[in-house]
């Protein structure tokens, strides 16, 4: 790659955050040419997101940290020496050339716009684009991302995958010369991920330079022409896609190669536990263990659960109305879910974005209560019970770690809600952090941790309670290869100890690897997955 042909170039001698002692990025050079797709691979904590934010104008030298090096965008060269005399980056002007979609997709959104269409148009409004041109652009981008049917919906009602598509749309609609996507496949179903690959190729075909930041070697990464590997803040390897290292080398770098990472791409599984076996029908699902609990009741039983958002739905319904006969209201998400979950059983639930998978999980612990039907936990109907009471038996890993983390340190975070003496609580919290590989981060603020470690910390908060039923909502999102191994081990240990586990995931390979069976939530009911 030559400097002359690149639209964005970074030559980083070192970049150091203000509140950190050592540099996060050192001695790297990266140039992005028009009309190309480049993959920047790296495990959690490698500096991938920091570099993405620096290139995207979200971490500005001087404001966020000190940069020594050169940034060049659209022919304008900026020299930085880590002093007060360094040039200031105008974020708005930078964004005219470079669009950045962060890992936490909701950050992009203004959240003051009433509909998806208005949110998409927000950036165009600020540029003074005419209403007619805006409507055309909104329709076009929404069509490309499968958001057309959601244009009149409020962004606050979207699922995690739909929000990611919206965030990508908000940046793509500005037609930047460079598009930087940080973990773009996270939470996307297979169809959406495939659509994103097509969109990336089309954008590159029109001259856009696309940079994909990922810790998972999936179809989006494989769509790239070039790849680079970032390790400990430096580029350690790179080349054309045909020269991508083999599985062993990538896995050793902490990358995920074995699973879909959003439902696309796949290579064989890696860390199957010792008790994993193939099913008689040849599928990769694990065999169901013998009855561990010996209980006469299923761990959880959902019977004809129906639920709709909107005026008929409330956060809590103190009184259960079993088998209520009435017309199906609009915005119905669950239309009669039946599920019996045994102790020690691991069930994976997949389904398209917006199908209601997270909504279903919240019925297990009473955060949502069905409009009709019943939820029995260990044989007891939880209708009208406080969620905090149900939580003694049910642990939930939320889809967004930030929804789960609210304390000042990782140790306090895990200790929250545990009962017993101070010593017992501290020991349980320390053990849970150790189980997920975060024993060295116990005093760090959860918000300071990389996304992968935030996910693991959230997992530790659930594991520390030793729940009889473990609910995991998109647990692989943001996890690198190392984190994923901790996750798989934790699931198998919990199941072996008699916990029933429900996974919601778009990662079909992970589902097959970790679960005894996979169900699909489709049109509001659960059906067995096709082999």
């Amino acid at each position, binding site marked *: 790659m030559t400097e002359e042909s690149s639209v964005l170039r970074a030559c980083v001698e070192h970049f150091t955050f203000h509140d950190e002692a050592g540099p996060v990025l050192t001695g790297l050079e990266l140039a992005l040419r028009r009309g190309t797709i480049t993959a920047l691979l790296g495990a959690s904590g490698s500096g991938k997101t920091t570099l993405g934010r620096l290139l995207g104008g979200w971490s500005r030298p001087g404001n966020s940290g000190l940069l020594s090096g050169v940034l060049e965008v659209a022919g304008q060269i900026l020299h930085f020496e880590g002093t007060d005399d360094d040039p200031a980056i105008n974020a708005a002007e930078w964004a005219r050339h470079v669009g950045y979609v962060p890992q936490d997709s909701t950050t992009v959104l203004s959240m003051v716009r009433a509909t998806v269409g208005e949110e998409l148009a*927000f950036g*165009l409004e*600020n540029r003074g684009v005419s209403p007619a041109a805006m409507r055309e652009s909104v329709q076009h981008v929404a069509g490309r991302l499968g958001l057309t049917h959601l244009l009149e919906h409020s962004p606050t009602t979207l699922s995690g995958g739909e929000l990611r598509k919206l965030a990508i749309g908000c940046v793509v609609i500005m037609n930047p010369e460079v598009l930087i996507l940080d973990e773009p496949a996270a939470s996307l179903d297979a169809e959406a991920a495939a659509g994103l690959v097509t969109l990336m190729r089309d954008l590159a075909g029109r001259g856009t330079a696309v940079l994909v930041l990922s810790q998972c070697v999936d179809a989006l990464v494989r769509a790239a022409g070039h790849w680079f590997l970032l390790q400990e803040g430096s580029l350690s390897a790179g080349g054309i896609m045909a020269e991508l290292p083999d599985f062993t080398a990538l896995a050793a770098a902490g990358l995920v190669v074995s699973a879909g990472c959003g439902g696309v791409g796949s290579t064989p599984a890696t860390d199957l536990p010792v008790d994993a076996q193939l099913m008689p029908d040849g599928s990769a699902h694990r065999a169901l263990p013998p009855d561990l609990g010996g209980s006469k009741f299923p761990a959880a039983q959902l019977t004809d659960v129906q639920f709709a958002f909107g005026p008929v739905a409330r956060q809590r319904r103190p009184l259960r109305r079993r088998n209520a006969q009435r017309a199906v209201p609009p915005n119905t998400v669950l239309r009669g879910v039946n599920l019996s979950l045994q102790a020690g059983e691991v069930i994976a639930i997949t389904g398209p974005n917006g199908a209601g998978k997270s909504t279903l999980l919240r019925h297990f612990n009473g955060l949502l209560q069905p409009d009709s039907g019943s939820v029995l936990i260990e044989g007891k109907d939880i209708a009208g019970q406080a969620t905090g009471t149900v939580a003694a038996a049910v642990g939930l890993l939320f889809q967004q770690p930030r929804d789960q983390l609210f304390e*000042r340190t990782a140790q306090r975070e895990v200790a929250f809600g545990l009962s017993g003496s101070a010593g017992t609580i501290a020991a349980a919290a320390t053990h849970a952090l150790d189980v997920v590989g975060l024993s060295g981060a116990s005093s760090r603020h959860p918000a300071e941790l990389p996304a992968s470690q935030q996910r693991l910390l959230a997992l530790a908060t659930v594991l520390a309670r030793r729940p009889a039923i473990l609910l995991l909502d998109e647990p692989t999102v943001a996890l690198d290869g190392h984190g994923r191994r901790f996750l798989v081990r934790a699931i198998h240990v919990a199941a072996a100890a008699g916990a029933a586990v429900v996974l919601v995931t778009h990662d079909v390979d992970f589902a097959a690897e970790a679960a005894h069976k996979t169900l699909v939530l489709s049109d509001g009911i659960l059906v067995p997955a096709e082999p």
Partner: protein
Amino acid sequence: MKLHPLTSLAIAGSAAVVTTAAASVPLSLAVMATAAALSFMSGRGAQVLAASAMILVPLCLALFMVHGLFFPEGTTVIAQWGPARVTIEGLTFAAERASRIGAAVVPLLVFSCTVSVPDLVAALSARGVSGRVAFVLAATLALVPAIGQQQLRIRQAQEARGLVIRRHLPSRIAAFRLQALPLVLSLVEEASGRAQALEARGFVSAARPTSYRQVQDPLPQRILRWLVLLCAAVVVGLRLSSSLPGGNW
């Protein structure tokens, strides 16, 4: 008929100005009653009532404490405790002031609780109001719901980890105490991230913003707006002229 947001604003603002200028208790009470009725008709009665109580109850208590007990011009004494005297004149004065404040506050609260914020922002943008002003207004009006959603997320996370919240007040207060600090910290963190996104999306652009959302503004409503604003100006003018030497209002 759906009111244009600026029409609603003009009516609410004029009501506040007219009742303040007129200083008539019956008029103030009538305005408050009408505003309250409109809020219930729009389905936001409980919200307006709660917000009104939060603002007016402390204010009215302060008024009656000060003027009801310590009104120098008061002559008709109902009760007396040392230097504190409850007089008819003091109570009347406090009631007049309370009704005037109420007549200004309630219509504006009805407006803020019933207005479509996106419509208001679009209407302001269409009139050339700076995008920053429009956003700040939208963010301010959307602040309470946003904080409520964030608090709900934190509460659900805590409940999912064993926090039991009972229906009685002490339990809710105890729960809120646990949620307050995480709520503030998360809002600060979110605001920081949001600021970067807004800059990147051209929020501080020098270009005059346009609006994707189109709000209908029929001619009769435009005329109505001018009429109510004119009416308010006339009442204020009359009030000022009556205050001059020789005036008799």
